[in-house]
């Protein structure tokens, strides 16, 4: 069967990991949480770099760890990208790339070295020594090196955390290409909301060594019982495509199942896949369509669920817009005044939409 089944229990002095997960065998799964939440430890357990006695791990139905066996890291068909690039200082970029590839049997090589080099655009760097690369270049080489072993699963431990903002922006497009062009499932450890919102298809939120929420990104972010805050606020991320361009007003419409929202035109082609992020605090509700408003994005939907927010004055409301959930934050007084109940039709007024990726 495809996917990853993992069960680990591990106790340190001031920290315990206790997780039982079934993760999809495709797409990008983000392991998201604060530092100390256990996300890196979980990743290291999956790689076999950390031993969790009594744990269980199977990847695509192949058991890597159970009560009797523990497949050592070097016999697991995985790729791993560390937070620091950790290139071998005594080898050129080319020899770094070849190091892992040469140790994989020829019939198991599915990612050509040329393809990895091309994906990460590191062709001009091949003959350099690692000390002569910038931080961003090093990390791109490290990602290509991990790809070159034709991994069945790619593990990344905060690959952007050690880089400044400009270098992050340099690498993110390459990670998106991996996501779009390769069949390899990616486990991505991060505490950065923008990276998760941009890259992840599936999310596991970790806190104090436990998985507090898990599921497809859009649905999990829209859960009201356990609102996961990607950053400062509750909000949803929606996969969309560019459906229309309004040349006169410099806007494009991002279409998704059930509707579309207008955002600033960034020059993307029609049909291009994009992600939009809508924060709960930027969404308000009304019972009728408002014509005399400056708000551009008005969508009809149906109230699905109401819940209390962290402050007693506030409530969260999940509204389904043709199958796509959007979360709004209101005062409880407003919710009571409107008499909101599940099943009720409402209009969403979306004040701000962020285009990501």
């Amino acid at each position, binding site marked *: 069967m495809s996917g990853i089944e993992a069960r680990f229990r591990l106790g340190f002095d001031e920290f315990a990991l206790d997780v039982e997960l079934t993760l999809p065998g495709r797409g990008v799964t983000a392991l998201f949480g604060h530092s100390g939440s256990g996300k890196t430890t979980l990743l290291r357990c999956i790689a076999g770099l950390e031993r969790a006695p009594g744990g269980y791990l199977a990847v695509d139905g192949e058991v890597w760890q159970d009560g009797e066996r523990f497949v050592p*890291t070097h016999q697991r068909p995985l790729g791993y990208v*560390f937070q620091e690039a950790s290139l*071998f*200082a005594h080898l050129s970029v080319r020899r770094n790339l070849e190091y892992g590839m040469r140790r994989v049997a020829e019939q198991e090589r599915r990612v050509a070295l040329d393809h990895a080099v091309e994906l990460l655009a590191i062709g001009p760097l091949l003959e350099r020594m690692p000390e002569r690369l910038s931080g961003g270049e090093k990390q791109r080489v490290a990602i290509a090196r991990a790809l070159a072993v034709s991994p069945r699963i790619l593990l990344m431990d905060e690959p952007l955390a050690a880089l400044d903002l400009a270098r992050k922006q340099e690498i993110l497009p390459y990670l998106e290409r991996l996501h779009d062009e390769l069949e390899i499932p990616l486990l991505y450890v991060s505490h950065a909301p923008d990276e998760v919102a941009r890259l992840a298809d599936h999310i596991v939120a970790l806190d104090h060594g436990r998985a507090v929420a898990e599921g497809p990104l859009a649905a999990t972010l829209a859960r009201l019982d356990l609102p996961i805050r990607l950053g400062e606020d509750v909000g949803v991320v929606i996969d969309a495509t560019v459906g229309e361009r309004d040349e006169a007003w410099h806007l494009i419409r991002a279409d998704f199942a059930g509707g579309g929202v207008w955002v600033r035109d960034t020059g993307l082609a029609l049909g291009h896949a994009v992600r939009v992020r809508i924060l709960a605090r930027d969404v308000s509700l009304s019972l009728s369509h408002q014509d005399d408003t400056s708000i551009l994005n008005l969508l009809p939907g149906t109230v699905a669920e109401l819940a209390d927010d962290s402050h007693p004055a506030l409530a969260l409301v999940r509204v389904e817009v043709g199958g796509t959930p959007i979360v709004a934050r209101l005062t409880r007084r407003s919710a009571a005044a409107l008499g909101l109940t599940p099943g009720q039709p409402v209009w969403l007024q979306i004040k701000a939409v962020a285009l990501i990726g």
Partner: protein
Amino acid sequence: MGFSDADFAAIWLTLRLATVTTALLLLIGTPIAWWLARTRSWLKAPVGAVVALPLVLPPTVLGFYLLVMMGPNGPVGQLTQSLGLGVLPFTFWGLVVASVFYSMPFVVQPLQNAFEAIGDRPLEVAATLRAGPWDTFFSVIVPLARPGFLTASILGFAHTVGEFGVVLMIGGNIPGATRVVSVQIYDHVEAMEYAEAHSLAAAMLVFSFLVLLALYQFNPTRPRK
């Protein structure tokens, strides 16, 4: 200033002893240094202390115990006799064994420092790139620890060339078998042959300087990034 045949014999013997000792020390010292660099066992401190003993012990003490151990009635002596090797004291191989102990810290400590400086990460990276432990050691650790191996070899060799007390205790003064340069110099002085002593002593001085010069030249202590 010239060397007699006896001087040349002593020089040749010394170089042979130092070469064999250094080769053996790299073979024995590398796993010890690796273990000391990686272990979390409580044995680390005691083993480290034993390895470092020759740094502080008078050579005569070390030589005395080795003599007793390897002598006809000592445990090592009994073993070598039962294996048909005879007894080691007053032979070339006796000197080799003694030199290995005597120069051990000069090989183990630079290697241990080099291994510790490398840290865990390159090992983990190699493992995720399909390299097993032996493969990792030879393809990653040895190249990264090259300066450490260079230092260890030079110090091990030079320190063996310079030993005197242990040799006297365990090897005596047999021409061609155990009479190394330092003993030869001692003999010259005893016989009031100051000119001959001077030649050899000066040669040793120049040799030692050149060795250390090479060490500092090829292996400058650079701040690591």
